[in-house]
């Protein structure tokens, strides 16, 4: 830019044009799309929940006066929490192994992780049903081999829901873990070793803290996805494994009571946002305290 250009219009353009600011402009289009097709409908949901059938909190009073809704919301949160933890425990070793691989074996492993990820949730849930039912593949095998003499109850209960959901959500955990693990410089681990840390210590005090961003991202992704699960709990769960999504569907499509459905959806949204904020605060706090190796 010529010097006289800046002197001629002093305050209007305080910052020079930079590529970063240019890239920010690219965000305008997605922002408009999000505002129109996501934020606005979401706002309508929230508004409907307090304006119909009359202005006020009638729908919320009904929810909290009915023990069923409160129990289902609590169960949904707990289910999402335990699924996220189990997923983490299973995904961590897998991601750790895969992160050390190279070449075609790495690609093969990634394919094995991603292909199920691209398969329909309904199909994967039905596959578990075929395996798990009373006279399913697994029970038939165990019965005929004499390992058990009564069929195991593997579905229509919490066990079935957990297995199905963990399986479906594993890629959401493995992929963020993998990306943070592959970003760890091998030299850091060597440095720890040179400084006298044994392998266990290296792992706990150096490796794990460095993977915390992946752990956080994975836990959040899995937890929030699990909150909205519908098909898997409906098909693999028993009557007690009712999730909030099932109730919202009943109100939306069967009873056509949209204000009530909106109130339930708003509660789920509020709970999710609240948990996210809490989680963010805690991880910042721990991060600042150096616990996450930050």
């Amino acid at each position: 830019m010529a010097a006289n250009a800046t002197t001629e219009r002093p305050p209007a353009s305080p910052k020079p044009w930079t590529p970063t600011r240019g890239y920010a402009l690219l965000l305008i289009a997605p922002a408009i799309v999000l505002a129109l097709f996501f934020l606005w409908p979401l706002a309508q949901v929230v508004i409907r929940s307090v304006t119909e059938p009359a202005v006020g909190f009638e729908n919320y009073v009904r929810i909290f006066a009915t023990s069923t809704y409160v129990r289902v919301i609590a169960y949904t949160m707990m289910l999402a929490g335990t699924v996220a933890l189990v997923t983490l425990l299973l995904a961590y070793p897998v991601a750790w192994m895969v992160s050390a691989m190279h070449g075609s074996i790495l690609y093969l492993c990634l394919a094995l992780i991603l292909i199920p990820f691209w398969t329909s949730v309904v199909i994967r849930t039905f596959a578990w049903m075929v395996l798990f039912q009373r006279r399913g593949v697994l029970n038939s095998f165990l019965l005929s081999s004499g390992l058990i003499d009564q069929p195991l109850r593997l579905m229509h209960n919490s066990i079935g829901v957990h297995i199905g959901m963990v399986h479906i959500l594993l890629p959401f955990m493995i992929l963020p873990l993998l990306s943070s693990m592959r970003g760890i410089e091998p030299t850091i681990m060597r440095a720890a070793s040179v400084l006298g840390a044994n392998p266990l210590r290296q792992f706990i005090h150096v490796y794990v803290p460095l993977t915390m961003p992946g752990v956080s991202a994975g836990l959040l992704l899995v937890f929030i996805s699990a909150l909205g699960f519908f098909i898997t709990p409906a098909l693999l769960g028993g009557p007690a494994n009712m999730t909030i999504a099932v109730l919202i569907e009943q109100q939306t499509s069967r009873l056509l009571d949209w204000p009530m459905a909106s109130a339930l959806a708003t509660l789920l949204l509020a709970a999710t946002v609240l948990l996210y904020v809490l989680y963010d605060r805690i991880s910042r706090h721990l991060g600042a305290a150096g616990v996450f190796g930050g």
Partner: protein
Amino acid sequence: MKQRPGSRGLNSSDPTRRHLLASAAGLAVALPVIGFPAVLRAKPERMTIPNPGGALEEALKAAYFKTFTDKTGIEISGAPYADTAKIKAMVENNAVDTDVIFTDAADAAILAKQGLLEPLDFSVVDKSLFIPEAVHEHYLLADVAAYAMAWNTKSMSDDKRPKNWAEFFDPSTKPGQRSLWKYPAQTLEVAAMGAGQGRDKLYPLDLDGAFAKLDAVKSVLTWWDSGAQGAQLIIDGETDVGTVWNGRLYKPRKDGAPVNYTFDHCLYVCDSIVVPKGAKNKAEAMSFIANFTDPKNQAVFCKNIPYGPVNPATFSLLDAETKAALPNAPDNAKTAVFQNFGYWADNGSMIIERFNKWLLG
């Protein structure tokens, strides 16, 4: 999953040119109200009719779509099922892009209650042709299916199976794993019958009695969520006796699967025809429904899918084998009862809360 269309009424008059002219006159009166000058509106070249799809859509095409096109030249194409939520959104946002919809009758009753449907024009559609249960101000039953008792013939011989709902809900006299649809409508009706409520005074439902019957089978009960799953449970012997929608077991039984079912004490559940509020071609929609009433067309429908007609004149056009598969054929109808769709539209919310609470235990 739970929807089956297929009723039809007899059309006393031929829905041809005269009808169209009459409908066009009706349209001319109606149109200024919705803001279109009548002269600008031509007969549509094509109509789209959402319906439950699958075998049902094939039957609808053969029986009603094709015959309507032959008479009027208006092409009809099927469209994916429009659930209540979709219809409500369409009507409320003034974006009604269909004129006729085949939908579950229980859904139709709720849509009617919320004022989302056009009233039917009974000057075009002759309601005297139908069984009385089929006729409602805003919807017409389209077929008669059954929520019926089915059993696996390998694990349950004919003398060991429950013969009625009282025995079904009493596992101590008729042992075996049970299955039911995990939804209060239909399931509570059969439970209430199990508790001794007569089919002639089934409504209002004896809810206390019905829930007590669910308690009685709780330890041997498997719930199903979709029609296919309900049928599969019985076919695989996962459960010994349970409820199904008859259309789901018709073919497996014919193909030799170890299953059987009975229309004794069954609950009639139905599809319906509705016209969404604000439909642009209301006159054509009514003449489509008039064509639907013709017993010749209903007979074609019943031969394609085992759901009964709503125009009783149809039965005289059917052979014995076809009639045996229809839930409301005279020989099958002796102990059956129609579901009361309006009852569920009025009480569904209260009952579903109680049902959910029961499920959670």
